[in-house]
């Protein structure tokens, strides 16, 4: 099982949670599967969804050892008031956090569907857009190819450093079903997607949440996911380094 490792950098980025009370949007401090995979699908995908979409699987994390320090140095806030042109007035202002000058790593599962990405990456940095408020200039990211990793070689127990879905809609074998999810919740046995795509061997403490998965051009569903902080037995690149 091989992954391609990319250096990641962005000047201004909004990887947010949902708006709170329609006003406040906090940012998260990792690069979830849904965001980076969606950004890569937008450029290298085939425009299809569910089982027909290209099998691009990626995730990532930012580089930091102390989250409080990282928040202090790399998270700022922006107050923004979208304008209603029909009423010629500004609607309720929103307060959004954003990440600036951030660096990290992105890991892409190597398979036939990512050949085009590999080809482009060999020519130079890849540019892509990710996250919120792209129309206001946020979200430009760069990926710089670093090399390949054999995920089976370095397995360890530790704290998950990213967000990964436990199932993939419409992909035979990866849609888990009630039984697979029950086994994960009750016994810590990873679903097929977690095992076969990310090489996760065991989930000792699960922090669950939901990630968005598009099912059409205009819609999608939220799927059960493992969030950062879960204790897992997995390839080392998915884990927080000691002291982080």
């Amino acid at each position, binding site marked *: 099982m091989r992954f391609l490792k990319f250096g990641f950098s962005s000047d201004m980025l909004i990887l947010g949670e*949902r708006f709170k*009370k*329609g006003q406040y949007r*906090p940012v998260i401090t990792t690069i979830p599967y849904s965001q980076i995979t969606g950004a890569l699908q937008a450029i290298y995908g085939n425009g299809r969804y569910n089982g027909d979409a290209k099998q691009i699987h990626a995730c990532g994390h930012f580089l930091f050892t102390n989250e409080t320090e990282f928040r202090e140095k790399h998270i700022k806030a922006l107050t923004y008031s979208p304008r209603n042109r029909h009423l010629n007035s500004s609607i309720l202002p929103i307060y959004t956090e954003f990440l600036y000058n951030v660096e990290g790593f992105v890991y892409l599962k190597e398979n036939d569907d990512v050949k085009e990405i590999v080809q482009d990456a060999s020519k130079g940095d890849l540019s892509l857009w990710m996250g919120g408020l792209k129309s206001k200039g946020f979200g430009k990211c760069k990926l710089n190819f670093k090399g390949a990793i054999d995920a089976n070689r370095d397995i360890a127990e530790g704290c998950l450093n990213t967000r990964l879905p436990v199932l993939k809609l419409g992909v035979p074998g990866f849609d888990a079903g009630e039984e697979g999810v029950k086994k994960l919740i009750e016994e810590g046995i990873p679903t097929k997607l977690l095992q076969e795509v990310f090489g996760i061997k065991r989930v000792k*403490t*699960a922090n*669950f949440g*939901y990630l968005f998965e598009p099912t059409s051009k205009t819609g999608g569903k939220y*799927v059960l996911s493992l969030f950062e902080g879960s204790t897992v037995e997995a390839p080392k690149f998915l884990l927080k380094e000691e002291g982080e």
Partner: protein
Amino acid sequence: MRKFSQFDNVILNTTTQFLAILTPDASVTEFVKLFSEKGFFIEVEEANTVLDNAYLAPQSIKQKEREKLEERLERRREGIEKQKQKIPENVYKERLEQIYAEIDEFEARFPIHNIYGSLPCTINDLCEVCQMQSAESEYDWVDEESGVTEHLCNNCYQIRKFREEPPAPKLDLWYKEEPRSRIAWIKVNLDIESLAETLQGLLDKYVQDIIKDEISEKIELRFSVLAEFQHDYEMFLKDFNEELEKELSEEKLQPILDDFICVKLDPTSKIKDILEIYNNLFTEYFPELKNQKSPVTLSISVSNVKFAFFRHWKILENPVDDVNVALVGRGEMHLNLKQLEELIEIRLPSAKQLHKLAKISETSDRLAKVLVYDRGDYRLYSSMDEMRGAVKNGINFKTILTYAKIMEDVDEVS
């Protein structure tokens, strides 16, 4: 939580944590159902042990039992290594594997896991508050003033509807009458795991220093100590609330929980009074905890009354040090209790100078440092003498600047 704390097997509880003993046949999932069925998720640290070893908190029990286990397994491992040449290799491997199995068995007795009410595989519309359940249109919540509609799940909707009157009516009033007023969210936290360690450390020290000749074996703390601590902690919180009311007057105080209060700050430098009250009461109730990392911490987050509560909560739920003050968007300070005492006693320059320092630091911390340390401005240099002294004694410069921002309106107090 108040109802929950009445259960016989709940030994210690705060508004967000509890410590309980269950019999082996009881289910933890059932025990916390009261919370999980309302949509909360519960982080559980378990210790499965015999009553004789039931010692203060789960991780402390684990630590203690691990020491014994490691000692025993090390002796066995040495025995196996000595016999290595005399026994067949498969027997040697089998015996080593027995040791590993025993370690796994030991770890399995101390699981750390989360309990969730329900976890659907997929959700069409996610609840905007908990982000863990499906939002239904019948539970849409419309804010009358702003017109903002929040799409909620049943649990979050029921929690909103729980009280007919708003849970913080004064906050509503401040928001409507003085939308530019500043408020502070104050949260006192108690870390149960750290409390167990601290109390045992204090007892060990006491035995070592005072009665070492009279007793030969290690004395271990039992649950009655926690019950006593709970009593003191509750009294401490009660007094803290009362003192705040005296200092700030009732109309500027919005109690929410015993350890969670919102106050209207007029002016911001009132934070110093809050810190003084906390420091005095802490010295009165827990004098021994002042000399080390305290399991009881204070977090204060200050902003305009309109500012989103969720941001405050992120600050309040993760205390970095014993005392933490955040001025949203302007700076943070994290201090231990000794540093707090020192900071409170610093003779500050005039409000005008503090204001100047605060304004400069908003542009550049380095520039502010020049102002404090530059001997060129003799008048300013000497009046900032004590501030410079505090930096030498371990308080960082950022804390000084945040404190300057807190105190810049001090003249309005007098």
